C-alpha cells in the first residue's frame, strides 16, 4: 500500500484508506483507479502526474 500525491495541490490518495467520498473503498490500489482519474481537489492534474510519496 502506498500514498500518491497531486503535485499541484498536494491532495493525497492513500491506498489503505481509499477515498470514500469519491467512491473508492479502502485498499483500492492507485493503479486500479480509472484511467481518466483527475485530482478530485484541483481538477488540474491527471493520474500520471501523481507522485508516489511513501509506502505504508
Amino acid at each position, binding site marked *: 500500500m502506498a500514498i500518491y500525491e497531486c503535485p499541484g495541490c498536494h491532495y493525497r490518495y492513500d491506498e489503505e484508506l481509499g477515498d470514500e467520498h469519491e467512491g473508492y473503498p479502502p485498499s483500492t490500489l492507485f493503479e486500479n483507479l480509472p484511467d481518466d482519474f483527475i485530482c478530485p481537489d484541483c*481538477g488540474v492534474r491527471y493520474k500520471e502526474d501523481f507522485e508516489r510519496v511513501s509506502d505504508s
Partner: protein
Amino acid sequence: MTTYTLQHPEKGLISYTDKKRYLWLSSVFMPIFPMLGILAYFATGSEWALGLPIFFSYVVIPFLDWGIGSDEDNPPEEIVPQLEEDRYYRVLTYITVPMHFIVLIAIAWFVGTHDLSVAALLATAITAGMYSGLGINTAHEMGHKKTALERWLAKIVLAVPAYGHFCIEHNRGHHTEVATPEDPASSRMGESIYKFALREIPGAFFRGWNQEKVRLERQGRSVWHWKNDILQSFAISAVLQLGLIYAFGWIMIPFLLVHNVWAWFQLTSANYIEHYGLLRSKEESGRYERCQPHHSWNANYIFSNIVLFHLERHSDHHANPTRRYQSLRNFDNLPELPNGYYGMYMIAYIPWLWYRVMDKRVLALPHINGDLSKVNIDPDRRDEIYARFGGGGQSPTTPLAA
C-alpha cells in the same frame, strides 16, 4: 495591519503586509447594496431609486475600475502558507452566506408588501438576482477548498440562486475541460453571449448531474440518493423559495423566476469573458495540455476584485484552483481584460462591440500570434472568421488536429 514575516535561509527576512486586507470587507458588504436601493425608495418615494444598484454595478463600477486602476502586487511565495492559514480571510467568506439569505428574504418581503409597477418589480428582481449571483461567487471561492465546512457552506449558499449543481460541475467539469471546445462553460471566438448562455446553462447542469451520478454509482448508490450533493442544495432552494411564495403570495413566482435566471446569467457572463477564444492544445497522447495561466483572461482592477473575492485573478485560479483568494497572483504576459468584470459584461451584452474589443486581443496574444488554429472558434462562424482574420487562408477541415 497584520504583517507576516519569515526568516528565509537564503533570502533573509521576508515580510509582507496585505494592503487589501481590510478592503476585502467590501466583498462581505456588497450583498447589502441592493438594500440601499430600497432604502432610497423609502426616502424619496421614487421607483427610480430601485434602479440604483443596477446603475452602480454596470456603470459606476466600470468607471471606478478605470479610475482606480489595477494592482499587480503579489504576496511572496514563502509567505503564502501563513496568509492561507490566517482565518480572517475565510471568516469573511463565511459571513456572506447568511447575508445572501437575509437579503433575498428582505427584498422578497419588500416586493410582497408594496404595490410596485411592472418596471419597478423587474428592476428589483434583477437587483436581487445580481446579488444572488454573487452568492455563486462565494460558493466558488469556498467550493474549491478542502475543508468540509467550506464545502457545506458552498452548497448552502448555492441554494439561494437555485444553482446547486455549480460546485460539482465547476470543479470537475469546467476546470478539467476549460479552454477546450468540449467545455460548455468556455466561450468560443465569434460566439455571442446569448448563444453561449443557451449552450452553457443546460450543458453545465447535465455535466454536473452526470458527474454526481458517476460518483454515487461508484459508491453503489443511486443518483437519487439523499447523499447527492446537488439534490441537497436544491432541497434547501425548494424550502426557501416555496416558503417565500407561501409567505408573500403569487407575486413571488415571477419575482423568483427573474431572480434565479438573472443570478445564473451573472455566472454565464463571468464564464463568457473568462476564457473567450482561448484554447489548450492537444498533446500526442490525445489529452489536452494542463491548464496554464494563459488559458484564462485576467484582470487586476482593484475595485471589482475586492467586491468579488479576487475572482478576476483568474489565470492563477485556473492553474492553481485550491489557492485561497487572498494569495492569488498576477503574472506577466497574461491575457488581460481591458476593464473589470462588470465593464466587460456590459460590452459582452452588445455582441458586435465585444467582437471589436476582444477578437483582436485574442489574436494578439503571444502564444496565438494570429494563428487561428490556436483559437477556440465557434464552428458555425469558422469560415467567416478565417476569411476575415486568416489572411485569405482556408478553414481547415479538421481544425482541432494539433
